[in-house]
């Protein structure tokens, strides 16, 4: 019951990522209505909600794609409401997108290298650094390791365009993980995948993320989150209407009423 404040990690400023009174309107539609949300430093949490509930908007507000109309975003005890998306990535907030955001015309290995790019540029920005043919040895090792875990070693030098969607998703996840983020935001990571592929992604998340970083997953289907997350929140019409562990949320009358429309 991490969301209820029973767990020490969730109380007050100890959350790694937090939102306070976050509001975003698009014309007359209120995509996020005064949302308060906190994510613990090693917590794995999910947000579910019907289509158009504002799930992706919440991500866009947290990652800095949108500026909120009202409210603020906090990271590690510091306000980051006005930071740009890149600045947030540099702090360690990474996200994936509904449509796999890999680069089709680059090779698999180059996608991973680019995901490392901002790390390489930190501290030094010489012409030599910009034109260096490859990254340092240590980094390429972790890229190789990543490729192995993905079972993509053989495809390393193929263009991403030739990969099936499942592999693209895995690659995208790897691109997000290779920067060793502190918070990982996943936007419908299972959409369009087969059960087998979903199983692989779930395994990868368990193996690479559990108790290592904070993970927030947006999903349409609650079933995939059942065994994965510590806590689930339900977002309907831009508001969080329920929050708690899987069973609590599932049994909650508000959820049943507004999400499944059952009495």
């Amino acid at each position, binding site marked *: 019951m991490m969301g209820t404040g029973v767990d020490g990690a969730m109380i007050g400023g100890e959350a790694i990522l937090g939102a306070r009174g976050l509001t975003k309107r698009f014309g007359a539609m209120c995509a996020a209505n005064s949302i308060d949300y906190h994510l613990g430093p090693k917590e794995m949490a999910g947000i579910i909600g019907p289509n158009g509930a504002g799930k992706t908007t919440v991500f866009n507000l947290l990652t800095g794609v949108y500026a909120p109309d009202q409210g603020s975003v906090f990271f590690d005890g510091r306000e980051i409401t006005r930071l740009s*998306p*890149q600045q947030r*990535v*540099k702090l360690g907030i990474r*996200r994936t*997108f509904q449509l796999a*955001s890999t*680069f*089709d*015309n*680059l090779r698999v290995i*180059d996608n991973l*290298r*680019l*995901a490392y*790019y*901002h790390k*390489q*540029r930190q501290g030094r920005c010489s012409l030599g650094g*910009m*034109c*260096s*043919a*490859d*990254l340092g040895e240590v980094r390429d090792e972790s890229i190789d390791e990543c490729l192995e875990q993905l079972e993509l070693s053989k495809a390393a030098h193929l263009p991403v365009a030739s990969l099936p969607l499942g592999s693209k998703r895995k690659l995208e996840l790897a*691109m997000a993980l290779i*920067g060793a983020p502190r918070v990982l935001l996943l936007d419908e990571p299972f959409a369009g995948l087969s059960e087998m592929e979903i199983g692989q992604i779930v395994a990868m998340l368990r193996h690479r993320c559990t108790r290592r970083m904070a993970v927030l997953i947006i999903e349409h289907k609650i079933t995939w989150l059942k065994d994965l997350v510590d806590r689930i929140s339900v977002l309907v019409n831009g508001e969080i209407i329920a929050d708690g562990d899987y069973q609590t949320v599932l049994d909650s009358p508000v959820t049943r009423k507004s999400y499944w429309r059952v009495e």
Partner: protein
Amino acid sequence: MSVPELAGTVVIGLAMSAIFFMLSVGLSLSYGLMRIVSLDQFLYYSVGAYMTYVVTSQAGNFWLGLLTGVIASCTLALTVEKSLYRRIYEKGVMFSMITSYGVLLVGIGAIKYIWGLVPRPVMTPIVGHVSLLGTTLPVYRFVVIGLAVVLYIGLRLFLERTIVGKAIRAGIEDVDKTEGLGIDVYRIFTLVFLLTAGLSALAGGIHAPLIMVDPHMGLKIIATAFMIVIIGGLGSIKGTVVSSLLIGQVMAFGFTIWAPAAEMAPFVIMLLVFLIRPTGLYGSQYLRR
């Protein structure tokens, strides 16, 4: 058409292609990456030519002039990019077209003020000739062709082997996703803009001995340069190479056979290409928005 005449025409065409390539490839890249139509590149082309003229006539060194032109143009381009483009990158193609056209006109005015309206000749740095298939051709044309080949190879290596080159290609595919990786795309924009300006200046300086340097030289070449960009397909280097080669030959043969055709033929080619492939020869499937 006799063999010597044919050989001469092909070489002249290749030299034209070389200059077209240097001028167009940057335009194509900057549209692909930044979604701008940068008409001020034709000012950097002129500045490159005028600096080459000044240094060649004063100091007697063409290559030094070329270098001066590139440095002067890049400095100017950096100022324009930091002060103007920064504000309009997000605003769509029309903004960049109009703004950069303004920069071009102001620059042409300045050139007229400084050097006057009279066209100026630039000495060819290499005066030798070579015999080829029964005709003699100036060595300089071969040097121009060779330089373009070297630039092409260098550019390909830069884009394919370096991490910044890969970031540029990623940006051409999708700027937002590239930004999502934590990459500061504006730094890359500046880099590509300067690269384009440098290439434009180089094209101007190299072109100077083959034509006369005059204040309107930039305006005269705009249509051809953009035609090459769109025939090749926006954002494609390979496409720019192929369409430069195509238009160079079409214009060279036009001049040899019937001069008025040289001006018109490229447009006919463009229309034909568009009938078959509306996105240009190598128009990228990734270029949307």
